[in-house]
Protein backbone atom coordinates (compact mmCIF):
# COMPACT_ATOMS: atom_id res chain seq x y z
CA UNK A 1 0.00 0.00 0.00
CA UNK A 2 2.86 2.37 0.86
CA UNK A 3 4.50 1.60 -2.47
CA UNK A 4 1.26 2.24 -4.35
CA UNK A 5 0.74 5.52 -2.52
CA UNK A 6 4.25 6.69 -3.28
CA UNK A 7 3.82 5.81 -6.94
CA UNK A 8 0.57 7.75 -7.14
CA UNK A 9 1.93 10.79 -5.29
CA UNK A 10 5.65 10.81 -6.13
CA UNK A 11 6.21 14.29 -4.67
CA UNK A 12 4.81 13.38 -1.26
CA UNK A 13 7.86 13.05 1.00
CA UNK A 14 6.15 11.10 3.77
CA UNK A 15 4.69 8.57 1.35
CA UNK A 16 8.11 8.16 -0.24
CA UNK A 17 9.62 7.50 3.18
CA UNK A 18 6.87 5.02 4.02
CA UNK A 19 7.49 3.15 0.79
CA UNK A 20 11.20 2.96 1.54
CA UNK A 21 10.88 1.87 5.18
CA UNK A 22 8.07 -0.62 4.60
CA UNK A 23 9.30 -2.06 1.30
CA UNK A 24 9.76 -5.82 1.15
CA UNK A 25 13.25 -6.79 2.28
CA UNK A 26 16.00 -7.00 -0.32
CA UNK A 27 18.73 -9.61 -0.04
CA UNK A 28 22.18 -9.28 -1.59
CA UNK A 29 25.67 -10.63 -1.20
CA UNK A 30 27.55 -8.65 1.42
CA UNK A 31 29.79 -6.08 -0.18
CA UNK A 32 32.71 -6.52 2.17
CA UNK A 33 34.19 -9.37 4.15
CA UNK A 34 33.68 -9.08 7.87
CA UNK A 35 36.77 -9.45 9.97
CA UNK A 36 35.14 -10.54 13.22
CA UNK A 37 35.73 -14.15 14.22
CA UNK A 38 32.18 -15.10 15.12
CA UNK A 39 33.07 -18.77 15.47
CA UNK A 40 35.47 -17.87 18.29
CA UNK A 41 32.78 -15.78 19.95
CA UNK A 42 30.40 -18.71 19.81
CA UNK A 43 32.95 -21.04 21.39
CA UNK A 44 33.52 -18.53 24.20
CA UNK A 45 29.79 -18.11 24.81
CA UNK A 46 29.19 -21.85 25.03
CA UNK A 47 32.03 -22.21 27.54
CA UNK A 48 31.36 -19.17 29.71
CA UNK A 49 27.71 -18.19 29.36
CA UNK A 50 26.85 -19.42 32.83
CA UNK A 51 29.88 -17.73 34.41
CA UNK A 52 28.58 -14.31 33.34
CA UNK A 53 24.82 -14.98 33.55
CA UNK A 54 22.84 -11.77 33.95
CA UNK A 55 25.70 -9.53 32.83
CA UNK A 56 26.45 -7.55 29.72
CA UNK A 57 29.63 -8.78 28.05
CA UNK A 58 31.84 -7.49 25.24
CA UNK A 59 33.67 -10.03 23.07
CA UNK A 60 36.13 -9.56 20.25
CA UNK A 61 37.26 -12.63 18.33
CA UNK A 62 36.60 -14.95 21.25
CA UNK A 63 38.30 -12.77 23.87
CA UNK A 64 36.39 -11.16 26.71
CA UNK A 65 37.00 -7.41 26.71
CA UNK A 66 34.68 -6.47 29.57
CA UNK A 67 31.71 -7.55 31.65
CA UNK A 68 29.35 -5.19 33.45
CA UNK A 69 25.93 -5.13 35.08
CA UNK A 70 24.54 -2.58 32.61
CA UNK A 71 24.98 -1.66 28.98
CA UNK A 72 26.18 1.85 29.82
CA UNK A 73 28.80 0.47 32.21
CA UNK A 74 29.96 -1.97 29.57
CA UNK A 75 30.34 0.70 26.91
CA UNK A 76 32.39 2.78 29.35
CA UNK A 77 34.93 -0.05 29.43
CA UNK A 78 35.16 -0.60 25.68
CA UNK A 79 37.09 2.04 23.73
CA UNK A 80 36.64 0.66 20.24
CA UNK A 81 33.45 -1.25 19.42
CA UNK A 82 34.36 -2.31 15.87
CA UNK A 83 34.02 -6.10 15.56
CA UNK A 84 32.90 -6.27 19.19
CA UNK A 85 29.88 -8.34 20.14
CA UNK A 86 27.98 -6.72 23.00
CA UNK A 87 25.19 -8.79 24.43
CA UNK A 88 23.35 -9.46 27.67
CA UNK A 89 23.54 -13.03 28.87
CA UNK A 90 20.35 -14.48 30.36
CA UNK A 91 20.43 -14.72 34.15
Amino acid at each position, binding site marked *: MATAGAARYPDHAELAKSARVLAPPTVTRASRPLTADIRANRVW*LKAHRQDYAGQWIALRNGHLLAAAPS*FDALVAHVDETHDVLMTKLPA
Partner: protein
Amino acid sequence: MTLALSNGESFALGVTGYDYRPATSYETTPQLVLEVEIEGILAEAVVDTGGVYLFYHPQIGRRLSLTPTEALSGVQTIRFRGVLVHGRLYRLTLTFLADEGEDVTIQTTAFVPEPDEAEHWGDLPCLLGLYGCLERVRFAVDLRIERFYFGPAEEVS
Protein backbone atom coordinates in the same frame (compact mmCIF):
# COMPACT_ATOMS: atom_id res chain seq x y z
CA MET B 1 28.88 -26.87 1.99
CA THR B 2 25.91 -24.68 1.05
CA LEU B 3 23.54 -27.40 -0.20
CA ALA B 4 22.21 -27.56 -3.75
CA LEU B 5 18.84 -27.69 -5.47
CA SER B 6 17.97 -30.35 -8.03
CA ASN B 7 18.93 -27.97 -10.86
CA GLY B 8 22.40 -27.54 -9.41
CA GLU B 9 21.74 -24.06 -8.10
CA SER B 10 23.16 -23.43 -4.66
CA PHE B 11 20.50 -23.41 -1.97
CA ALA B 12 22.44 -20.96 0.13
CA LEU B 13 25.44 -18.66 -0.07
CA GLY B 14 26.66 -19.03 3.48
CA VAL B 15 26.46 -21.15 6.59
CA THR B 16 27.04 -20.36 10.23
CA GLY B 17 26.68 -21.96 13.62
CA TYR B 18 24.18 -20.89 16.22
CA ASP B 19 23.31 -21.30 19.84
CA TYR B 20 20.19 -23.35 20.60
CA ARG B 21 18.91 -22.01 23.90
CA PRO B 22 16.00 -20.15 25.48
CA ALA B 23 16.13 -16.53 24.36
CA THR B 24 15.64 -15.20 27.88
CA SER B 25 16.06 -16.33 31.45
CA TYR B 26 12.29 -16.61 31.93
CA GLU B 27 11.71 -18.92 28.96
CA THR B 28 12.33 -22.65 28.67
CA THR B 29 11.85 -23.38 24.97
CA PRO B 30 15.12 -23.19 23.04
CA GLN B 31 15.37 -21.01 19.97
CA LEU B 32 18.00 -20.37 17.32
CA VAL B 33 20.28 -17.53 18.41
CA LEU B 34 22.69 -16.20 15.78
CA GLU B 35 25.42 -13.61 15.81
CA VAL B 36 24.60 -11.01 13.17
CA GLU B 37 25.65 -7.51 12.24
CA ILE B 38 23.07 -4.73 12.26
CA GLU B 39 24.15 -1.36 10.91
CA GLY B 40 27.76 -2.27 11.61
CA ILE B 41 27.16 -3.44 15.17
CA LEU B 42 27.51 -7.09 16.16
CA ALA B 43 24.56 -8.46 18.11
CA GLU B 44 22.83 -11.69 19.04
CA ALA B 45 19.48 -12.24 17.35
CA VAL B 46 16.75 -14.84 17.63
CA VAL B 47 15.19 -16.37 14.51
CA ASP B 48 11.52 -15.65 15.15
CA THR B 49 9.42 -17.28 12.44
CA GLY B 50 6.24 -16.09 14.18
CA GLY B 51 7.41 -12.50 14.34
CA VAL B 52 7.44 -9.43 12.13
CA TYR B 53 10.28 -7.12 11.10
CA LEU B 54 13.63 -6.88 12.80
CA PHE B 55 13.16 -5.96 16.45
CA TYR B 56 16.22 -4.18 17.70
CA HIS B 57 17.44 -4.10 21.28
CA PRO B 58 16.53 -0.67 22.74
CA GLN B 59 19.87 -0.14 24.48
CA ILE B 60 22.10 -1.25 21.65
CA GLY B 61 19.84 0.78 19.39
CA ARG B 62 21.09 3.95 21.04
CA ARG B 63 24.50 3.21 19.49
CA LEU B 64 23.06 3.52 16.01
CA SER B 65 22.66 7.31 16.23
CA LEU B 66 19.35 7.08 14.41
CA THR B 67 17.34 10.27 14.03
CA PRO B 68 13.53 10.34 14.07
CA THR B 69 13.55 12.03 10.67
CA GLU B 70 14.82 8.75 9.19
CA ALA B 71 11.86 6.87 10.65
CA LEU B 72 8.23 6.71 9.71
CA SER B 73 6.59 9.75 11.24
CA GLY B 74 5.58 9.41 14.84
CA VAL B 75 6.07 6.82 17.52
CA GLN B 76 4.46 3.48 16.66
CA THR B 77 2.95 1.19 19.26
CA ILE B 78 3.25 -2.54 18.66
CA ARG B 79 1.93 -5.33 20.84
CA PHE B 80 5.00 -7.44 21.46
CA ARG B 81 4.86 -10.59 23.56
CA GLY B 82 1.65 -9.34 25.14
CA VAL B 83 3.05 -5.93 26.02
CA LEU B 84 2.58 -2.63 24.20
CA VAL B 85 6.00 -1.35 23.13
CA HIS B 86 6.64 2.15 21.77
CA GLY B 87 9.21 2.66 19.06
CA ARG B 88 9.92 3.77 15.53
CA LEU B 89 10.17 1.99 12.21
CA TYR B 90 13.39 2.40 10.24
CA ARG B 91 15.06 0.81 7.24
CA LEU B 92 18.19 -0.93 8.53
CA THR B 93 20.90 -3.16 7.15
CA LEU B 94 21.19 -6.64 8.61
CA THR B 95 24.06 -8.95 7.68
CA PHE B 96 24.13 -12.70 8.16
CA LEU B 97 27.73 -13.61 8.94
CA ALA B 98 29.11 -16.78 7.41
CA ASP B 99 31.53 -19.22 8.98
CA GLU B 100 31.83 -20.65 5.48
CA GLY B 101 30.73 -19.19 2.17
CA GLU B 102 29.55 -15.62 1.79
CA ASP B 103 27.89 -13.10 4.06
CA VAL B 104 24.43 -11.93 3.03
CA THR B 105 22.99 -8.47 3.55
CA ILE B 106 19.30 -7.71 4.02
CA GLN B 107 17.71 -4.28 3.81
CA THR B 108 14.82 -4.68 6.20
CA THR B 109 12.10 -2.88 8.06
CA ALA B 110 13.21 -2.57 11.68
CA PHE B 111 11.37 -1.62 14.83
CA VAL B 112 13.64 0.22 17.25
CA PRO B 113 12.02 0.66 20.69
CA GLU B 114 12.20 4.05 22.34
CA PRO B 115 15.14 4.31 24.78
CA ASP B 116 12.85 4.29 27.83
CA GLU B 117 11.64 0.79 26.86
CA ALA B 118 15.06 -0.58 27.85
CA GLU B 119 14.14 -1.08 31.50
CA HIS B 120 11.36 -3.49 30.49
CA TRP B 121 13.32 -5.27 27.77
CA GLY B 122 15.34 -7.56 30.05
CA ASP B 123 17.78 -9.99 28.47
CA LEU B 124 15.90 -10.50 25.22
CA PRO B 125 18.23 -10.24 22.20
CA CYS B 126 17.25 -8.74 18.85
CA LEU B 127 14.60 -10.67 16.93
CA LEU B 128 14.49 -11.55 13.24
CA GLY B 129 10.85 -11.86 12.23
CA LEU B 130 9.76 -13.81 9.19
CA TYR B 131 7.39 -11.17 7.82
CA GLY B 132 9.17 -8.04 6.67
CA CYS B 133 12.66 -9.33 7.47
CA LEU B 134 13.40 -12.97 6.61
CA GLU B 135 10.66 -13.37 4.03
CA ARG B 136 13.08 -13.03 1.10
CA VAL B 137 15.79 -15.17 2.67
CA ARG B 138 16.14 -18.85 1.85
CA PHE B 139 17.28 -20.62 4.99
CA ALA B 140 17.61 -24.11 6.41
CA VAL B 141 18.69 -25.54 9.73
CA ASP B 142 20.62 -28.70 10.50
CA LEU B 143 19.87 -29.23 14.18
CA ARG B 144 22.16 -32.23 14.43
CA ILE B 145 25.31 -30.25 13.73
CA GLU B 146 23.86 -26.81 14.63
CA ARG B 147 24.37 -25.21 11.23
CA PHE B 148 22.21 -22.44 9.77
CA TYR B 149 22.28 -22.09 5.97
CA PHE B 150 21.21 -18.82 4.36
CA GLY B 151 21.01 -17.09 1.03
CA PRO B 152 18.73 -14.96 -1.11
CA ALA B 153 15.42 -16.47 -2.18
CA GLU B 154 16.05 -15.07 -5.66
CA GLU B 155 19.21 -15.13 -7.75
CA VAL B 156 21.33 -12.06 -7.07
CA SER B 157 24.45 -10.67 -8.66
